[in-house]
């Protein structure tokens, strides 16, 4: 159990007092943590959320369920003007322009942190309250490289614990092949290997190659540390030249790796985790369930394990101190993204499969007092339901324009099981990569929002009680 942090408690108490004062003035502020592994669709989700909220604030019916939750009192939504933030600003206009361009471009892999805040202006519920003017709810959003999220569980582990757990994992299944050269290298190292930079850089390079192969070739997700895969704008630094060792408690190279491990975590904690993930009120955990299913049994289980690790490391506000200071997450939504990749009939199965996948993290969040929900959405809808003939039989499929060729295609995504499938499913199934679709015709300025599936229902559940 970590030692109590008096400064952290004080800061939480001040934040709690500020939140209470803001609520009293009708100026609530809520930080929405959009959490997800890499390529889960966080950037597109945020772009769609911003465009549709701004359009809803201008009076368009882009988010009907959210408007119903607000009882029609949403009057205006605007982007909070930039202040003196040191963190880059999330640029929904640029993402929308790229999506609307010809040829369209989906957002590239997120390389850095960026933030944005929206203010929702609402009429007061009562006539008397309206004397005091509109309520304002500020929604703070953060975009970040999904890979970095997997550094969260490392904060609870020492270098020796992390080394042992990681090496045990690397020797199993598809990882053993991806990390073959790295495992051969570390197994050949003597226990008292000297603290030579040549050794540490060689080990780091082999380990990183293994991580890349595991991600790109095998579709695995539980890959640590995050900055090895996505170093961000600061690039590679000497504190990253470490890797798991079979003898992590010796001197020489083991000691050097342990020091760099500690320095790496301290750096990630101060730059990314502490400022952005210490305190938030609502959380959306985005999961590309269909891609995990299509990439095989090991990738599917690995995604589940990665989600369990991340959610176990997040702060759900169940402790006594959290209750005293009013901190912690109130609502957690687990969201299956890219729901437009399956026809409507299968979306319920997609939600049920995600529910099964995140059972352990859900129970943890529930035990800490957070409400949890499971949703399926397409932040930008790219397909329409159709019928295709497969093996001489008509099946429900989705129809869209392929990104690469610009040709129309019907895609039959296979049957989505409502719970984790058994061995029979994997035996017959082969790996399948869902093609990228072009986004639909969009206004480059996003004045009318963007077509979506289920974004309004998710937002109504996540923040509807604040409106």
């Amino acid at each position: 159990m970590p030692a109590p942090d008096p400064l952290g408690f004080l800061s939480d108490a001040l934040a709690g007092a500020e939140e209470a004062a803001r609520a009293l003035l009708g100026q609530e502020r809520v930080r929405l943590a959009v959490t997800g592994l890499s390529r889960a669709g966080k950037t597109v989700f945020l772009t769609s959320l911003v465009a549709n909220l701004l359009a809803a604030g201008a009076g368009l019916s882009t988010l009907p369920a959210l408007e119903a939750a607000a009882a029609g009192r949403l009057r205006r939504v605007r982007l909070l003007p930039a202040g003196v933030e040191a963190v880059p600003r999330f640029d929904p206009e640029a993402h929308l322009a790229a999506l609307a361009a010809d040829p369209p471009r989906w957002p590239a892999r997120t390389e850095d942190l960026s933030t944005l805040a929206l203010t929702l202006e609402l009429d007061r519920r009562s006539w008397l309250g309206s004397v005091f003017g509109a309520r304002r709810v500020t929604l703070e959003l953060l975009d970040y490289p999904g890979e970095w999220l997997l550094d969260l569980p490392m904060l609870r582990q020492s270098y020796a614990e992390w080394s042992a757990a990681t090496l045990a994992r690397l020797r199993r299944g598809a990882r053993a092949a991806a990390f073959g050269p790295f495992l051969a290298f570390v197994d050949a190292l003597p226990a008292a290997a000297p603290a030579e930079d040549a050794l540490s850089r060689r080990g780091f390079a082999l380990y990183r190659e293994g991580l890349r192969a595991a991600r790109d070739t095998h579709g695995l997700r539980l890959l640590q540390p995050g900055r090895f895969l996505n170093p961000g704008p600061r690039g590679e630094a000497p504190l990253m030249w470490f890797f798991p060792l079979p003898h992590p408690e010796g001197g020489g190279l083991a000691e050097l790796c342990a020091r760099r491990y500690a320095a790496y975590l301290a750096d990630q904690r101060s730059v990314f985790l502490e400022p952005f993930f210490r305190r938030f009120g609502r959380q959306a955990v985005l999961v590309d369930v269909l891609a995990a299913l299509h990439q095989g049994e090991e990738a599917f289980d690995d995604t589940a394990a990665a989600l369990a690790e991340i959610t176990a490391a997040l702060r759900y506000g169940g402790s006594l101190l959290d209750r005293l200071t009013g901190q912690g997450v109130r609502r957690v939504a687990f969201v299956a993204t890219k729901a437009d990749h399956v026809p409507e009939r299968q979306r319920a199965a997609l939600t049920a499969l995600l529910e099964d996948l995140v059972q352990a993290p859900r129970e943890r969040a529930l035990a800490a007092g957070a409400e949890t929900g499971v949703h399926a959405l397409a932040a930008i809808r790219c397909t329409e339901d159709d019928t295709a003939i497969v093996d001489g039989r008509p099946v429900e499929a989705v129809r869209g324009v392929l990104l690469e060729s610009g040709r129309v295609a019907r895609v039959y995504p296979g049957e989505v099981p409502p719970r984790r499938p058994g061995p029979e499913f994997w035996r017959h199934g082969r790996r399948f990569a869902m093609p990228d679709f072009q986004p639909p015709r969009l206004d480059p300025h996003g004045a009318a929002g963007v077509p979506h599936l289920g974004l309004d229902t998710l937002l109504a559940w996540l923040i509807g009680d604040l409106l």
Partner: protein
Amino acid sequence: MSAPGTPPPREPRVILEEGEAPPPRSAAPAPRDRETPPAPRLDFGWERAVAQGSAARPRPAGGWSSLGLLGAGAAVLVLGLSALEAANFVAAQFARATWLGVLTLGVAGAGYGLIGAALWREARGLAALRSVDRARAAFARGDHATARAEALRWAAEVPAAQSVLPALRAANDPDSLRAILEAGPLAALEAQAQALGRAAALQAFAVTAISPSAGFDALVFASRGVRLVRQVAALHGLRPGLAGTLALLRRTLLDAATVAATDVAVDTAARALLTNPLLEKIAGEAAAGAVAARRMLRLARAASEACRIVPRR
């Protein structure tokens, strides 16, 4: 969709539409390939759907909170019962003597008239604030008809804006309305608000520098601040009563609170630097005065912002 009793195919599949012309959905983009022109992107008719949805969206009726019902009930009881009591009393006075009844009726009528006038003034003040909100919302959503109507009504009541009335009538879109208002009357009103702020800042500085206690400073700042907010509101054609002033103060409170937090830090740092007791006394009071003056200037800006009928971009 597959035949009943037979399991659906397990393997996912991509089936390209060979030689099939896609249905016309939108204007085709420029072809990238001479042999196989790209298909047009899907069009869900989103813009039309969201526009229709918004037209059908009803505006919610204002409800009554428990506190509102409590207050209204108390007001009805106090005013209603006192009116009944007064009526009984007037009737009794008429029974005693006609001249006494007339006199009592005059006194009661004057009293209730003054109360009515106060309520009427409050209602007008609040209605003016609501009108500002309507105008801002109309500008924000690009609703030209409402924005124009509100801008014309506002300009007719604000002396500084009457010269632009013809231009406002001729404006064809919200951007033109905004440009006319921002370049003309709003710029002038903001300059006047700053002048009022400077006058208030000077007074706050002088009073704080010579005041005997911090509590007195706060009192002076609060009362001068409220007066400043009301002066700025009057510039913008608002004549807020008590409730209107409260609403205006609330709107400016957050900005003012942010500034105050910064100022406390600056003030503390300034005081910490001065260790000489005499210097500390003289410069410390002057520093406090400067902080109060700066807050007053900021308050003028915040109040002017709260009263603008055009939202900032």
